[in-house]
Structure formats: structure tokens, C-alpha cells
């Protein structure tokens, strides 16, 4: 037993550590997650929901840590600020690069879109024709939803096949009203 293993979790260092991760291990892990969900789900929607649940867990845990590393003792109150945080910091931490695009819907002020041409997690996931409606990036959708909800911006996130992968974020009325004030 090395010294580190006997350290309590509350004493662990929060440093960024080694920034490089094995791509094959990462994609293998995700592929197994997809398979795990497929085995236990009754429909494709269920698979997407289960992946989103896993993503929510990851998002809830990451938000405090990433804010602590990037700007200590500060939080975001505006929609645009937290969306930029997701696009840059969160995406870089989880997927190694910033999200491709962040847009606001022209017709509905409650909707925002995060667009990613080819999510790294889905790179080695192939969809057979009968399951082509399943977008495994639902996992990332769950991460976004949990990050926003924990940060104080209740919303729903759905994942679509559009321009690659588009995450549509629909904020609650209360959030939009708050912004107006």
C-alpha cells in the first residue's frame, strides 16, 4: 500500500495533474457505457436517457472543481457567462478542445444551441441503420444539463443530429425573466 492510497479523499490534491489521457482507453470506456445502457434499456430513447443520467452525474461533480481551478470564489449569474464556461472550460476538460459553436435561437430567447461537428466520444461508435436515431452524445447533453441546473439555471437539454451534433438548451421561463431585469 503506497502512501497515497491511505490518504483520505478529503486531503487529495486538486491540481490538474497529467493532462494527457489515452484516447483508446477513453473511447473503450465510453463504448462499454453505451453497451451497458443498451443491455438494460427497452428502447432507443431509454438508452439516450440512461446516457444522459450518467452525464448528469459527471456534470454535477465537475462544476465546482472547474470553477475553483479557473476563478476561485467567483460564480456566474448571466446565461452567456455560464454558457461560455461550458463551451471553453468544461468542454476542454472533458473532450480536449472547445465546443465548435455556441448560438442563440433567433425565434425563441429561451433556446440556445451548442454545436459540435464530431464529438470525440462518438468517434468510434458506429450506428447501424436500425439504430441511427440514437445519438450517443446524449451523455454530453446530460453533462451540460447538470452543469446548468447546478449553477442555478434550470433547463432541459436535448441532443440532435444537426450540423454534426447539436445540443439544444431550453431554459426555464424564470431564467429568461431574470436576465431581463
Amino acid at each position, binding site marked *: 500500500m503506497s502512501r497515497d492510497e491511505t490518504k483520505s479523499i*478529503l486531503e487529495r490534491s486538486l491540481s490538474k495533474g497529467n493532462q494527457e489521457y489515452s484516447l483508446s482507453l477513453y473511447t473503450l470506456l465510453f463504448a462499454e457505457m453505451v453497451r451497458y445502457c443498451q443491455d438494460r434499456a427497452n428502447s432507443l430513447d431509454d438508452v439516450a436517457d440512461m446516457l444522459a443520467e450518467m452525464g448528469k452525474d459527471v456534470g454535477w461533480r465537475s462544476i465546482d472543481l472547474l470553477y475553483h481551478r479557473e476563478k476561485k470564489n467567483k460564480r456566474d449569474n448571466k446565461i452567456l457567462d455560464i454558457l461560455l464556461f461550458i463551451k471553453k472550460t468544461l468542454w476542454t476538460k472533458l473532450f480536449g478542445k472547445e465546443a465548435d459553436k455556441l448560438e442563440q435561437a433567433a425565434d425563441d430567447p429561451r433556446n440556445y444551441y451548442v454545436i459540435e461537428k464530431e464529438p470525440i466520444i462518438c468517434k468510434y461508435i458506429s450506428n447501424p441503420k436500425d439504430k441511427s436515431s440514437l445519438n450517443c452524445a446524449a451523455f454530453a447533453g446530460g453533462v451540460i444539463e447538470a452543469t446548468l*441546473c447546478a449553477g442555478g439555471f434550470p433547463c432541459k437539454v436535448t441532443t440532435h443530429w444537426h450540423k454534426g451534433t447539436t445540443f439544444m438548451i431550453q431554459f426555464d421561463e424564470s431564467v429568461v425573466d431574470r436576465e431581463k431585469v
Partner: protein
Amino acid sequence: MTGSYYFALVGGSDRPLLETEFNQRREKEQRHLCQLIAHASLDLLEARARATSQCFLKSVDRFNEWHISAYLTPGGAKFIMVHDQINEDAVRNFFQDVNDIWLRLRLNPFYNPDGEIKNKSFLLRVRAIGQRYFGSA
């Protein structure tokens, strides 16, 4: 004269996950009163949070002789301190130290999001931090 301090860690769903006191002088009824005061101040806490991007919200409310100070984490957890002596620096340092260990507890995969905190090590740590800043318990 050391003041008495009541600390509550409130989760995202406004449920208290942890409550503890330091330097409790009077009877047991004080804890119920402090709990009531802390939860009544949640509305003011949220209103204050909208106005600033700081995590430490300083004093958000007053109830007779009790001051309520608060700290809102980016992940939505609220740290509330009900105290009868103004001691902003000690309270701010206490909140920052608790935030440090709260971050790590959040990362624990065995800790359920917004679940009750049963980790003994965490509870002991919070008490140790409190004793360091607020004098003997």
C-alpha cells in the same frame, strides 16, 4: 467573549445536508431557532446572489441579535452561518476552508448528489475548521 455560531450546509434542493454549532451557550431550543432563521434567510440569500458574482455573500440577513452570513458555491450549495457576533474574516475563512473539502466530497463517486452527508471524516474536518476559527467548542 466568544460568540456562538450555527453552521448549515444546504444542498441544491434547499435541504440541509449538514448542521453543526460552535460555542453553543444556551439551551437546546437555540438550535431550532437557528435552523428556522437560516432557512428563512434563503430567499434573501438568493436575491443577494443575483446581484454579485462573488461566492461569499457576507451578511444577508439579521434577526434580532443574530446575523446571518452566507456563501454560495458555483455548484449551487449554500453555506449559512447564524452568529451573534460580527466576525467577517473568520466566517469568510471558515467558508473557504469548508468549500475546499466540500469540493473533494462532491468528487467522491460514493457521495450521492445532494444527499445527506454521512462521511465521518468530513464532519470531523468541519468541526476542526470551526474550532480553529471560532475558538474552543
